[in-house]
């Protein structure tokens, strides 16, 4: 390695008395991709922001230096280093990174002109257009003038790569950029980013909460824990010979898909009748065609899907975003009615229930959502939130309080927070509130729409254990709707794979993961990031990710 372009020397960052980054040092050279692994709360994001001289209000660099080509970012470098041109940053929220009221292309051009005032508008536009081509955005000439809301997550992240790279930065900070993306899309983004970095001899700091993602891109990886860099090794060495206990545990928590012979316990009984029967359900949305008068596109979100959910089983539904998973969730929870087909609960069609009966029946099937921040009202106390479903059904007050406390205990929440607001609670605790909120109603079926994907690995395993325990004590049945294949592999007895609104394959855990029949299932599995050897390589099956 030649002289390092970015050198971090004993960096300390604090919010008041609370040290978030505690004496971190490392160096990155040109064409090098330096990975930093850390769970949520380890200080990754703060580190990333400190490297771009972009600390939020109230958080300050209290010691050490960040040197860009020898210039201290905060002192001498402040005039010589332009953030956005010399150092670029890409974050984990591509879809809220740009002004929603201005088309994507012009915003990137605007940025380029700001950091490189010498360019003409035409030159800038040409450069952005070329890069949009390079990151493989389909028909960039049209996409250039589309608004951010018209971009999918993966496309937007590619646009943000263009935004970061258009000014030819020497250093790129990528903070968990593939976390919100589907596996297939993430794999594409990573390979695009890697190519571009090498071509441009750029130094990249790749911060990630997934060791699997780091394995795809990084050369050297530093492990961050509680604000400190506790070890640093080339990624393969790190994975095979970690030096610290912390890293060892982290690696052991990485879920395996193929290198384990264990399958989730089958709690089914011989005389079981299906709990929920889904028969040939379809749902089509009318979407107004742009530039036409009263014409509509018909989007077939779910097409003729059938399956049974058996008591006490874990049924998994996998597929990329856009494949119809969310619509299917809305149908299963009867938030929307299918255009055709039927859903039966305990033998009776849901369509036959009147409003009053339906309210009562809804106790039996409850939905748990992905985002515990938006799904919990911020100004309602925890206890009141959990009891809402009971109150709605006219339960006496004393009994309600009793049941709420019981549910809180069973999901592992301290009853002392009964009268607290949810503000101070962590993601995991919030998700437990959602679970308790469903449990007070004594449901039979819980439908989990990406319920675990907001959590980091450690918290995720704890909740999986909790789900298993609840299943045993309360005879619960779960439907896991997820794009996290490793989680599904660990938990689900039977799995259905969806592609473009259709259920292309349904099978038990073993047959789906080890003997997939449909080509799409193979393609999906082969894109899954994992530490295992893959039993097959289906990379060339020609399935395009849904956009």
């Amino acid at each position, binding site marked *: 390695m030649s002289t390092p372009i970015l050198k971090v020397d004993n960096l300390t960052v604090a919010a008041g008395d609370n040290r978030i980054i505690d004496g971190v040092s490392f160096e990155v050279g040109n064409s090098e991709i330096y990975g930093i692994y850390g769970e949520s709360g380890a200080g990754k994001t703060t580190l990333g*922001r400190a490297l*771009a001289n*972009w600390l*939020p209000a109230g958080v300050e660099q209290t010691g050490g230096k960040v040197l860009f080509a020898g210039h201290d970012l905060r002192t001498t470098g402040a005039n010589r280093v*332009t*953030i*956005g*041109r010399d150092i*670029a*940053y890409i*974050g984990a*929220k591509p879809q*809220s*990174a*740009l*002004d*929603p*009221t*201005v088309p994507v292309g012009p915003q990137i051009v*605007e*940025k380029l002109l*700001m*950091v490189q005032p010498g360019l003409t508008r035409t030159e800038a536009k040409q450069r952005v257009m070329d890069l949009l081509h390079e990151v493989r955005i389909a028909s960039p000439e049209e996409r250039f003038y589309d*608004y951010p*809301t018209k971009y999918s997550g993966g496309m937007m992240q590619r646009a943000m790569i263009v*935004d*970061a790279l258009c*000014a030819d930065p020497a250093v790129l900070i990528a903070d968990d950029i593939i976390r919100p993306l589907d596996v297939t899309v993430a794999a594409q983004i990573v390979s695009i980013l890697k190519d571009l970095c090498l071509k441009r001899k750029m130094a990249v700091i790749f911060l990630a909460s997934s060791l699997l993602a780091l394995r795809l891109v990084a050369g050297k990886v530093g492990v961050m824990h509680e604000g400190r860099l506790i070890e640093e090794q080339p990624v393969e060495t790190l994975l095979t010979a970690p030096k610290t206990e912390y890293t060892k545990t982290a690696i052991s928590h990485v879920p395996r898909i193929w290198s384990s012979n264990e399958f989730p316990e089958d709690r089914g009984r011989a005389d079981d009748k299906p709990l929920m029967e889904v028969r040939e359900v379809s749902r089509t949305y009318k979407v*107004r065609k*742009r*530039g*036409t*008068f*009263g014409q509509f596109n018909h989007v077939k979100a779910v097409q003729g899907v059938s399956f049974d959910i058996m008591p006490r089983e874990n049924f998994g539904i996998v597929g990329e975003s856009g494949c119809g998973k969310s619509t299917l969730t809305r149908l299963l929870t009867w938030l929307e009615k299918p255009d055709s087909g039927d859903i039966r609960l305990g033998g009776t069609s849901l369509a036959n229930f009147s409003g009053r009966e339906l309210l009562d029946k809804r106790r039996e099937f409850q939905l748990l959502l992905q985002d515990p921040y938006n799904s919990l009202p911020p100004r309602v106390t925890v206890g009141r939130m959990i009891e809402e479903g009971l109150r709605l059904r006219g339960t006496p007050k004393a009994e309600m309080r009793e049941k709420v406390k019981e549910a809180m205990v069973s999901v592992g929440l301290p009853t002392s927070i009964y009268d607290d607001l949810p503000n101070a609670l962590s993601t995991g605790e919030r998700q437990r509130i959602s679970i308790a909120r469903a449990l007070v109603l004594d449901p039979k079926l819980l439908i989990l729409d990406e319920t675990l994907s907001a959590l980091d690995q450690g918290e995720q395993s704890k909740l999986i254990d909790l789900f298993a325990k609840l299943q045993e004590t309360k005879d619960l049945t779960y439907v896991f709707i997820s794009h996290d294949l490793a989680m599904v592999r660990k938990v689900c007895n039977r799995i259905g794979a969806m592609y473009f609104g259709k259920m292309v394959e349904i099978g038990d855990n073993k047959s789906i993961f080890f003997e997939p029949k449909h080509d799409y299932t193979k393609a999906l599995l082969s894109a899954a990031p994992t530490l295992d050897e893959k039993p097959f390589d289906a990379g060339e099956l020609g399935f395009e990710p849904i956009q």
Partner: protein
Amino acid sequence: MIFVEFLIKRILQGLVIVAITSFVIFTLLRVIPGDPVRLIVGGMAPDNVVEEVAAKMGLRDPILVQYGRYMGNLVTGDMGQSYLRPKSGMIATGGEYVDPTKSDMAEVWDLILERVPLTLQLAATALVFALLVSLPIGIAGGLRSEGWPARIAFGIQSLFVSIPNFWLAIILILFLSVKWHLIPALGYKGFAYVILPAIVLAVEISPFIIRTLTTSLAEVMQSYFIDEAKVRGLPRRRIVFGHALRNASVPLINLLGIQLSTLIGGVLVVEYIFDYPGLGHLTVVSVVGRDFPVIQGIAITISAVFVFINILVDLVAYMIDPRVEL
């Protein structure tokens, strides 16, 4: 196209709104106490003369018949004639008997057309004054929502909202016009006469503009794309004026559409106080004199203007933010 579809839909809706407004006004005028005929023929006229004139004017027909007749004329562009105002411009009073069925009474349409420009001028000037005051205060308050600019914005809006418009009008007339002879106050002989009433109206509407702007701008400044714009390399000035204000202006524009009703309510009082010969003044005089055709004409005009401005507001909001549903 979505625009054409939108326009057709909204114009049809607008016609329904105007029809409903006119019907309600039409009915209410005839149901509430106060007989225009009595005012026209004079307090001393015998009852049979009153009835005779009323029958001649068609005022004793069933209301639906009268309404049908009125709407029939309206679609041909005829709003009828004033009961009180002759073409000469003098106001007829009970003292001198003018036959309102004769054609020497002023056309309602002409009366309105004559005053609309004056009222529009007043409303526009008031809006400009209000924006001149509210934009800097609101923007400063929104950008520093924790600091003193926000407190100043709050103070000013509290002060303005608590000033009664008639009181302010009298104070302004007393000092600026009567005592110091700086600005003329009563009547209308040129643009200078617009200033005082416009100030009164501006004080009335600016608290709402300040409030909306501070809160929506403060909210936009919290969004992630504003934060990320810094690390993308955009200078702060550009972030604020190019992006934050753009996003914050959508609620503001919607507010202005609604503010129009406040403005019209304010115009009634303010024009009367300043003897400003606009639509508001005409309304007050006509209501006092039970001049049915004029009141109806004004109501229809105002509801049409209201519909038009709200269509415009929605279009502008859509052009700024494509996520707004048309």
